[in-house]
């Protein structure tokens, strides 16, 4: 197996006496789509906060592309190519769709302490932003105000913004959250295309999507990874069925 792009070892985070992330270790190989599933309250969102850098870890190590990034800020991790999307849509609603993506391109295109030239007229930035929008099929919406998009389109834009940062690895935090059937079908096919070019860590509730897309699946329960493996193995894992999938079948 090749050198992992993302390597997490013995990561911990506690809030008071509650261990929310409890000795979590896993590797993500380049080009892999690694899904992290788990019941509500398993600590999935806390884990993604730790991976993206918005929450400091108590102990353990995260390394990305061979470098340790455990103590780097979110801003520094994005610059190295580790970008995230948000579970709760977090776009700039007053900006156009294009500007949302263009800002992410601007962040990696030289200094933003430029005060006089119109940013909207910088063709190289707009071109790169359009390319990111085209990947999520939003290029025909480029000049619309982001706030006027439908919920599904906003979820697409979330992914386009992460793409536009130029990241190699995307941490997608429940990209299907709140979407209807048609919208999630669009997003699933988008993610299938993204797999061709990007390494993805996907946190998701939708089991159908996870088992359709993932190369490997990790199962998080009460802060601990109880299983990691290819979808078929995880699906049939006894502890997993008991802890998680069983609940769904029973319900």
């Amino acid at each position, binding site marked *: 197996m090749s050198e992992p792009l993302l390597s997490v070892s013995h990561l911990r985070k506690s809030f008071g006496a509650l261990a929310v992330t409890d000795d979590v270790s896993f590797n993500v190989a380049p080009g892999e789509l690694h899904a992290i599933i788990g019941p509500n309250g398993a600590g999935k969102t806390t884990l993604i906060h730790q991976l*993206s850098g*918005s929450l400091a870890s108590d102990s353990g190590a995260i390394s990305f592309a061979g470098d340790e990034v455990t103590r780097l*800020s*979110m*801003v520094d991790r*994005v*610059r190295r190519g580790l*970008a*995230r999307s*948000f579970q709760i*849509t*977090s*776009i*700039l*609603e*007053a*900006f*156009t769709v294009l*500007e949302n993506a263009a*800002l*992410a391109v*601007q*962040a*990696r295109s030289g*200094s*933003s*302490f*430029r*005060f*006089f*030239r*119109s*940013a*909207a007229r*910088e063709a190289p930035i707009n071109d790169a932003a359009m390319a990111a929008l085209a990947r999520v099929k939003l290029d025909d919406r480029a*000049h*619309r*105000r982001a706030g*006027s998009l*439908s*919920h*599904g389109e906003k979820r697409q834009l979330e992914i386009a*913004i992460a793409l*536009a*940062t130029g990241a190699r690895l995307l941490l997608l935090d429940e990209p299907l959250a*709140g*979407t*209807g059937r*048609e*919208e999630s079908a669009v997003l699933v096919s988008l993610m299938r295309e993204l797999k061709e070019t990007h390494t993805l860590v996907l946190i998701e509730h939708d089991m159908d999507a996870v088992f359709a897309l993932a190369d490997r699946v990790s199962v998080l329960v009460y802060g601990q990874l109880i299983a990691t493996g290819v979808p078929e193995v995880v699906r049939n894992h006894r502890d997993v069925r008991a802890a998680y999938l069983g609940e769904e079948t029973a319900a």
Partner: protein
Amino acid sequence: MSAGESKIALGGKTARTTPDLARDRRRGIVDGRGAALAAVLLLLALSLLPPIALLIGDPFLVVTATRIMIFAIAALSLDLVLGYGAMVSFGHAAFLGLGAYSVAILLANGTSDILIQTLVAILASALFALVTGAISLRTKGVYFIMITLAFGQMAYFFMVSLSAYGGDDGMTLAARSTLLGLPVLNSDLTLFYLTLGVLALAFVGLRAVIFSRFGRVLRGTRQNPVRMQAIGFQPFAYQLTAYVIAGALAGVAGVLLANQAEFVSPAYMSWQRSGELIVMVVLGGMGTLVGAIGGAIAFLLLEDWLAKFSEHWKLGLGVLLVCLVLFTRGGIAGGIERLFRRAPS
């Protein structure tokens, strides 16, 4: 956001596009070309004011207009911080005072040239903004308001205690500033056009800044600072820079204010003055440069006009402000924008 709502939106994709696009284009009235046009008209009207004042035999109009434009410059600078940066600075008058005292203190020590005075005013205001901004920006929300208020009051009490330069009473300037040794500013008309020029430059400059890379980061941060970090921007540096630019520009307004009044006093830096600047920006429409100018004009004219009716004019002003905030969201600029939007295009 419910799934039901999004389904409807998805189903009506094509039907929604046309009116939405048209509405989005019309939105340009405040932030886009419409605003620039309004500002150009406003500045042109102001430039015609002196001949009109002469015609109707009211030379004092020029003096009043100069004073209004000086506050418009200060309000513009505050708008960068408050409207575009979403930082509610309650100590902005301190910069106005620093600029004014730069003139007074340099003049008292024998330097009357306005270029040197302005340079000192910019440096002093920018330095004060850099230090106080770096500390204030560690806080957010109400705490930011309180800490900027505290710094403003510190500057105020510093000037009150500065007895060599008038202390509490302030001091009258021996003369207005000179330009390259010439006493050109002694003419109210020259001062008027100088102020108008600075106002126009400030507007054009800030407009460029707002649409620049820097301004885009600042506007993005106003909407969602966490999103900005997630794409690789550290908001602090951009907010602090905006704070320094705004402080320096308010310092320039202070230089003009000292010359216009031929008097400086700690009252320029009082928290009431900072509050009035906020009112001007909110009244005109936060986050629209032309609104800041309009707000300053409206506020000072109202103040003048209401004072003619009663010594309790501030009560009337209060009532008017409450009505404006309640009934015209987005201030004067927002109201005008809605008027235009309602009209068929």
